């Protein structure tokens, strides 16, 4: 079975396919493939093509009034009432959905019909504007299928958004005669205004048997957790009024109530709050003396003052959303749109999409009994948090409330997540506004583990042809107590590595990997041979590092396993004249990078470098034969949000006489190239992830007045 996931390639570029001498077999297979291809194309040429007959669906120019009429006999069957014990594992036929590589459910929409009773009176309005938008959105989405046999979920085109607009019994009969009804199994109904006078049930009253209900205004007693989906009540104002996003911050009013038909009891409570706290509480009501032609729904009044609705909502920090006869209120959508923090006072209400949305981040829920304490409760919320709630409220509206499309897709995604839980959308994706998604990091190595010392590390030496110096490095590194394996990446395709007998004899296994191409990225391949978490990347000319320095570096890495821990430190700077980033290799008081010519890091970053490097950075590095180390610094900083750690004062690595700045050369072109790299990477990452710090790690007793022989790491060079 095919996985949708990228396959983890466990073999490296190290393997050069061994050409076998049996060319013939290759050619014969190739030839037969070509021949087969030819035959196949020929077959196609003469195959009678059946063009799908354009059914009535494709006729573009059609009115809703032209749809077929279905007459429902008075005695046609009625489904059972909704079953309150339904759960996905009892009432949902999951076999219809099957395992598929995309992990997407398939949704079928019944074609639109007009239902009339025996006397020809219509059962309901054929379809409302909103339901039509909702179905259009589903049909345009990747969930949609027009093949009823492949469908996993069925959406009737019978519009039950508003219970008041339909005849309950007849609508139920219409549902029951749907071709795949089967007791409502895998059918999804959308309803926003449930119930009716006098008792206002909190779920749709139409008998619907096992059908799932996406309902607005569920109470905790009618909501079947994990089966139904709680959706918002759509506010048509969302489409009509454009409220530009207002930056978070304090607003003119602290609490505002804008609902018109509040129960007198609630109104009394609110007025008591106003009397106590004065101007900061504003309680609006409908306007009594509006001139003709002014829509009452767009105005609100307080005494003689007239306010525009919903604009006035933007003037307040908190906006009260009280229950009416129903629990779900369209005003919630308006409030969120205005970036006002909703104060939800509706006991037992299941908030929209509460299965996935973390409403604590965007709203304040207050029990009805506690209404008198509302002011003090809200006062206790710190300003920083209020601002975040304002942003969050607006984001919820933009993502999940603003259109019928948003509501429909969120509903389907929730059901999809239940059926394919292992491919479900994460909490962060549901809840984090884009700005937070952008600025926050989730460290892939988030568990605070200090890896056991006994694991040791694997040293990887990338080499081309400097055998003599390579052997010196090997000999030096092999003295480090925690070294557990040495891997030489032989990047020279024109020359064989020295014979086995010539290599230095060391106490740990030494492996040579030959690469297929001379690429810098070979150094960062997650070779299977690396069995430790820690990797020491070291160049074949770094001979100055002492065993104590390396062992200490490993100990430091163990305390910071999610960082690059290395010896040569570098810095990036903003060049104000050129208006771009600049690479700095002078001795500075700060570091933001460590070069991977000598650095410890977690093997996981090899995996990331090889498979998850953003953009074309990896190829760019290989093409330019430079900056692989800067790329690694960017990658690690970007994914962890943390700085590098430079260990020990060491600044000379190749020879005692060398200038402090190692590397290819001191010359200008080198610096320019490195600066180029930083600018290039910053643009690919879309940000500058590198973190500047002023510290380096030294052994606890470094340079302390203390007998050297009692120090764990006495041999720490000073330059």
């Amino acid at each position: 079975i095919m996985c949708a996931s990228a396959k983890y390639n466990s073999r490296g570029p190290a393997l050069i396919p061994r050409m076998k001498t049996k060319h013939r077999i290759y050619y014969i297979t190739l030839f037969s493939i070509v021949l087969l291809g030819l035959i196949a194309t020929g077959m196609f040429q003469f195959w009678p093509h059946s063009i799908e007959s354009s059914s009535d669906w494709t006729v573009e120019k059609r009115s809703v009034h032209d749809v077929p009429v279905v007459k429902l006999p008075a005695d046609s069957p009625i489904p059972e009432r909704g079953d309150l014990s339904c759960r996905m594992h009892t009432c949902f036929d999951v076999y219809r959905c099957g395992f598929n590589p995309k992990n997407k459910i398939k949704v079928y929409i019944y074609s639109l019909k007009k239902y009339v009773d025996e006397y020809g009176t219509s059962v309901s309005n054929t379809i409302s504007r909103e339901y039509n938008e909702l179905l259009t959105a589903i049909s345009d989405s990747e969930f949609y299928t027009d093949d009823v046999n492949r469908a996993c979920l069925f959406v009737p085109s019978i519009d039950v958004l508003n219970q008041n607009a339909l005849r309950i019994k007849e609508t139920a009969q219409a549902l029951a005669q749907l071709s795949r009804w089967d007791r409502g199994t895998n059918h999804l109904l959308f309803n926003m205004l449930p119930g009716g006078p006098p008792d206002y049930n909190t779920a749709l009253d139409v008998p619907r048997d096992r059908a799932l209900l996406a309902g607005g205004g569920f109470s905790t007693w009618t909501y079947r957790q994990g089966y139904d989906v709680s959706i918002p009540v759509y506010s048509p104002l969302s489409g009509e009024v454009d409220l530009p996003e207002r930056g978070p911050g304090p607003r003119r009013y602290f609490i505002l109530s804008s609902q018109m038909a509040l129960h007198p009891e609630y109104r009394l409570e609110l007025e008591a709050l106003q009397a106590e706290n004065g101007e900061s509480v504003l309680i609006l009501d409908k306007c009594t003396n509006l001139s003709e032609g002014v829509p009452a729904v767009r105005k609100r009044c307080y005494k003689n003052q007239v306010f525009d609705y919903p604009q006035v909502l933007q003037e307040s920090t908190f906006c009260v959303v009280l229950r009416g006869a129903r629990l779900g209120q369209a005003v919630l959508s308006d409030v969120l749109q205005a970036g006002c923090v909703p104060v939800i006072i509706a006991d037992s209400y299941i908030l929209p999409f509460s299965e996935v949305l973390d409403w604590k981040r965007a709203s304040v829920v207050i029990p009805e009994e506690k209404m008198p304490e509302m002011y003090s409760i809200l006062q206790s919320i710190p300003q920083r948090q209020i601002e975040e709630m304002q942003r969050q409220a607006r984001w919820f509206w933009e993502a999940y409330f603003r259109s019928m499309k948003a509501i429909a897709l969120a509903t389907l995604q929730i059901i999809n997540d239940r059926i394919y839980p292992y491919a479900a959308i994460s909490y962060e994706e549901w809840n984090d506004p884009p700005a937070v998604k952008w600025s926050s990091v989730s460290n892939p190595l988030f568990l605070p583990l200090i890896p056991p010392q006994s694991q040791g590390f694997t040293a990887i030496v990338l080499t081309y042809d400097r055998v003599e110096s390579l052997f010196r490095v090997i000999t030096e590194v092999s003295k480090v107590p925690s070294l557990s394996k040495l891997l030489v990446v032989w990047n020279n395709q024109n020359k064989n590595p020295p014979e086995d007998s010539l290599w230095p004899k060391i106490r740990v296994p030494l492996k040579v990997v030959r690469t297929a191409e001379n690429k810098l990225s070979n150094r960062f391949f997650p070779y299977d041979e690396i069995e430790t978490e820690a990797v020491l990347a070291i160049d074949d000319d770094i001979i100055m590092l002492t065993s104590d320095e390396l062992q200490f570096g490993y100990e430091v890495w163990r305390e910071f396993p999610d960082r690059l821990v290395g010896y040569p430190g570098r810095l990036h700077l903003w060049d104000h004249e050129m208006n771009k980033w600049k690479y700095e290799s002078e001795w500075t008081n700060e570091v933001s990078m460590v070069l991977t010519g000598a650095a410890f890091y977690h093997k996981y970053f090899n995996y990331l470098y090889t498979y998850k490097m953003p953009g074309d950075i990896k190829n760019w590095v290989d093409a330019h034969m430079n900056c692989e180390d800067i790329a690694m610094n960017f990658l690690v900083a970007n994914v962890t949000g943390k700085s590098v750690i430079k260990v020990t004062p060491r600044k000379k690595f190749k020879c005692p006489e060398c200038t402090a700045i190692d590397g290819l050369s001191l010359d200008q072109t080198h610096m320019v190239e490195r600066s180029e790299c930083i600018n290039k990477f910053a643009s690919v990452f879309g940000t500058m992830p590198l973190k500047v710090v002023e510290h380096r790690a030294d052994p606890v007793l470094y340079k302390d007045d203390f007998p050297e022989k009692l120090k764990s790491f006495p041999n720490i060079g000073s330059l």
Partner: protein
Amino acid sequence: MQTRKKYIFLTFLASWLLLFFFGGDQLRRFALFSGRKARARRNWPRWTDRSLLKSFADPEELQRDGDPSLSPRARRAAWLSAYQGSRCRMETCFDFSRCEKHGFKVFTYPRQRGQPVSESYGKILRSIERSRYHTPRPEEACLFILPIDTLDRDHLSGQYVRDVDEKIRGFPLWNGGRNHLIFNLYSGTWPDYSGELGFDTGQAMLARASFDSDSFRPGFDVSIPLFSKEHPQRAGDRGWLYQDSVPPRKKYLLVFKGKRYLTGIGSGTRNALHHIHNGRDIISLTTCKHGKDWEKHKDTRCDQDNADYEKFDYRELLHNSTFCIVPRGRRLGSFRFLEALQAACIPVLLSDGWELPFAEAIDWSRAAVVGSERLLLQIPSAVRCIHPERVLAFQQQTQFLWDAYFSSVDKIVHTTLEIIKDRLTPHRSRSRFLWNALPGGLLVLPDFSTHPGDFPFYYLQHGSSPSEKFTAFIRAVSQAGSLSQPILRLIQAVSGSQYCAQIVVLWSCEKPPPPSGKWPQTAVPLTVIQGRRRLSDRFFPFEAIRTDAVLSLDEHISLSTSEVDFAFVVWRSFPERIVGFPTQSHFWDAEQGRWGYTSRWTNELSIVLTAAAFYHRYYHSLFTEYLPAGLRELVDGLAACEDILMNVLVAAVTKLPPIKVTQRKQHKEAEAQPAACGDGAAGTPPAGQRSPPAPHSAAAKAKGTAGSRRFSQRQDCLHQLADWFGYMPLVSSQLRLDPVLFKDQVSVLRKKYPRLEKP
């Protein structure tokens, strides 16, 4: 050979050409055809009159929802009687008013004589009694816990308690079960294992294992994990994940080893598990051998299965597999769940309708694969398709959850209590984010804040950073009622820092602090708080501290402005840790079989003295609110080791060592101990009281008994803390952070912190 090659090559070329001519055309057509087909997909029609369609509801109808005839108060009153029993909710079956005056307090009925409770229930009761919410007075309680062991309600079991109804009736506080919490691990019995408890629970909440979603009352009950009677009371073993590897370097992909039920409830799933066994990376072993009469129901597979079963060891499989199947047993939950969680073996749940433990708080989709019993055969391909990075995240999350909520009875019980407490004040409760990110909900006090940016743990995930200034918090114990020279110098040095926002002095002497005129003039505001003489007060969350960072100081410490500046810059990189100057360390004393403590020069450190250290102000709240009063009393009683306790606390929260930064030189030993304030103020030994490991110098000897008494006090204290926590939270570090050019041979002019190097 050559000619043949040529021929082959030619044919090859010719066929490609042919393919190109005919096929290319064909392919184009095919593409067109498929394009036409896509267009022919029967989408929902674009009605010509769609813009004329009426809205689903009149705007007026939406905005003026309802008929205001039914009074909300009357409705709520009607609910009280309508929604009882299986439809209980907090609104209808819980009396919030009991929790208003005294907050969330839990009362455990006194144990009754002659009524032994099981080991597990005993642990639960002890956990509650250890909790900071426990109260011995029923009149101030918000929640009540019965003394009757209700864990095992299988009436065939030996621990089944009879006549619970009757016993309950004898409790005057029962009140129909209102505000009671009943713990239960096993309910029902052969053959159907129904959820019956066998007594009337009234309006009581249930905290129960193997909860099924049918009988679970959302927002009212709490689902807890099944745990064994060996489950430790506190601390608990750590998880088994020691390394993060991608791809997961484990021998097996998916394993199961357990009973196969031949008949009865749960047999459907258990009977099918052998189908996915492939003998290579998927090991699914079942045995029929259990119960008395298994041979009666024995089928053809049994003998082979039983033989295979013996070939693998359960623990070995657990250790060496990436995923572990956790199917339902007779009941929905199993011990296996926690075992897999601890082993970092990602649980693959096959238990339809199981209300997962603490699902109200915990997002299980990050730590477990919730499979469907009906789709068992898809499980292998589904888990194979999970990306290696995701597997790594899953594994880490299992470890975090295990350690935060499940590793001991204390944690399970405290999580239950915190979930209930969160319901009482929804506006002051933890968001799902706080529950599911390190260090976990128990260590997040909503009374401190519910905003992630206010805690030291979430800066990166939250995309924010700690405040750019700090508060210097000096504990003054000067004897004379006037200001000593060291404290004046200290105030000068600290106020000279560009990052200092304010100075707060905690005056811990009986004598009143000097009048404001006597204090030195500083560039930053200076506040004096009159403290009580308790040592633990120095970590009280004073309102006056307004910055994230606190620089805690003893008055006799000597610091320079550079040191403070550098240390603060370092702290900003490690806001969740203690960053400071003088350090000490702990070690395991194998000879005495206990934890040892040393203040000598060592190559390691695990304690940073709070006599001079930066840390996040939230730790003041944790210290005062989270730690049990007993520990603070210990510190106050000893008048010592408050700094060790703070270090232990921070290490327990972060699992990380503190950080030592460069110290200019060894501080001179403070001349005289601040004795005038009495021993109550003696507190920490003077910073820098670190003597070389050589036998005590003459000076140290001269100090004599006072020093050694303090030393043994601290040693004892460390021992007691380790005992209370159930393990040793302190973590050692081998490094010190210095400025990048510290003591390098470069011009002093180029160094940012040259003063740190002056002798």
